[in-house]
């Protein structure tokens, strides 16, 4: 095959010119705001000695306010309501109590009416979607070897088979992501199971449409129905994403599992309870 040099380079240039970039946001304004905030902070805080006294004062004030706030039951619920499942923490701001949705023939869950917050889904950004540039893709065999815990695969549904794509990263602990893609579209996922070792990542904040306590193999679990926004932070890194699907999170033997799919709670629990170590 002979690509003429000009041909490929010309096509690249033409393609680059036609690429529909998103509109450039007003970064200058945002940067200015950040700089102004930084200046105000610096001016207000002053020298180090003053900062220590101010910090002590602020801490004392916070203690007083916190004590007062926690004496009010309604406020207390608002302030402290979050769910911690393994390494995942879900914060639910401004909660309102609503009944849990009706469900039938669930394996062994304990359902608790929990907190509901309606969230209007915003369109996801990103016109260019590809897995090709994603870091950490590996084989199942390699993931099994490198993971510090025993990887498990669902034995239900029987036809599910092995995951189509496997990703792995290690940030203080292994994170393995197993992706089953849609048969008709290998770029779209049908089921994703995260298996996360302790210490891998800090947590996530979310405000899902429906959030329920349930159980997987007798262990506490949380079921979240999308769409909801996740905000995950770890140090200075910050990640915000709209989650469209349903998520089941639970912990077994110190490993946090996060199952994301379009399946119902009943199906998700059945898949979760079917996990068996890879032989």
């Amino acid at each position, binding site marked *: *095959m002979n690509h003429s*040099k000009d*041909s*490929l*380079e010309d*096509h*690249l240039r033409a*393609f*680059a010119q*036609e*690429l*529909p*970039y*998103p509109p*450039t*946001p007003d*970064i*200058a*304004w*945002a*940067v*200015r705001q950040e*700089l*102004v905030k930084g*200046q105000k902070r610096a001016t207000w805080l002053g020298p180090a000695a003053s900062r220590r006294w101010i910090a002590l004062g602020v801490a004392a004030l916070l203690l007083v306010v916190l004590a007062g706030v926690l004496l009010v039951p309604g406020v207390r619920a608002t302030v402290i309501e979050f769910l911690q499942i393994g390494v995942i923490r879900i914060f639910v701001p401004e909660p309102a109590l609503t009944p849990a949705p009706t469900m039938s023939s669930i394996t062994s869950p304990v359902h608790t009416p929990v907190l509901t917050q309606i969230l209007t889904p915003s369109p*996801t*950004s*990103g*016109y*260019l*979607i*590809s*897995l*090709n*540039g*994603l*870091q950490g893709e590996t084989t199942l065999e390699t993931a099994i070897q490198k993971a510090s815990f025993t990887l498990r695969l669902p034995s239900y549904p029987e036809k599910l088979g092995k995951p189509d794509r496997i*990703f792995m*990263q290690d940030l203080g602990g292994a*994170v393995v992501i197993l*992706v089953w893609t849609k048969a008709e*579209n290998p*770029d*779209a*996922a049908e089921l*994703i199971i995260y298996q996360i070792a302790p210490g*891998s*990542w800090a947590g996530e904040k979310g405000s899902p449409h429906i959030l329920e306590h349930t159980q997987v193999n007798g262990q506490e679990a949380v079921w979240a129905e999308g769409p909801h926004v*996740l905000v*995950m932070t*770890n140090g200075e*890194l*910050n*990640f*915000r*994403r709209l*989650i*469209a*699907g349903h998520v089941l999170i639970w912990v077994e033997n110190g490993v946090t599992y996060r199952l994301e799919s*379009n399946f119902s709670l009943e199906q998700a629990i059945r898949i979760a309870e079917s996990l068996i170590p890879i032989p």
Partner: protein
Amino acid sequence: MEPVRCFRCILLRMKLSGESAPGEVQPTDLPQSSVDLIMRARQGDGVAWEVLVQQYQQPAFRLAYLFLEDSDEAEDVAQETFLRAFQALDRFDLSRPMLPWILSIAANLARNRRRSIWRFFGVVQRLVREEPRLVSGEVDGAEQRWQTQSLWDAVQHLKHNDQEVIYLRFFLELSVEETAQTMAVAPGTVKSRLNRALTRLREVIDRDHPDLKDSWT
């Protein structure tokens, strides 16, 4: 000189007076107005910095977008780029053009972001129920859309280093010299890397998109 709080006033004043910067370094590649703005920004003038950000925000955002394929993440990276550049402004060499310096910061941040676990989650999350979109929804004709999608897929199959040099040269249309400064390598290295990247791109097209080459002939 009295401080000027309106960036349009700064530009107008510079345009009218052609005043020079009070710095010691004699710039060679920067327009005098940019030097003035940098000198003011170095003294903490946020408005002057805002003017500079406006000059370079589009290429910084677009480079981050090419790396990350997500406008929210690209915006974060672009903002961080200019905040870090502002903090490091004293170390900027006024004898050099500013764009490659800005883009080198943006590329580093985008590279780190791409490697981060959150980026990793983000891309997987987007896969959950989102049908793949064509690269260019605004391109007329199915044939042309298919071509652009195929070409984009081929570029995405390249290693990150190969992608980077192609983005800088073809997508941001930087000169060899500017690309070299952005990548902190010699111009000759840019040429050889670009040749290698294009060779690999041809190989990917031959292997994965053989119909694409026929459509070009």
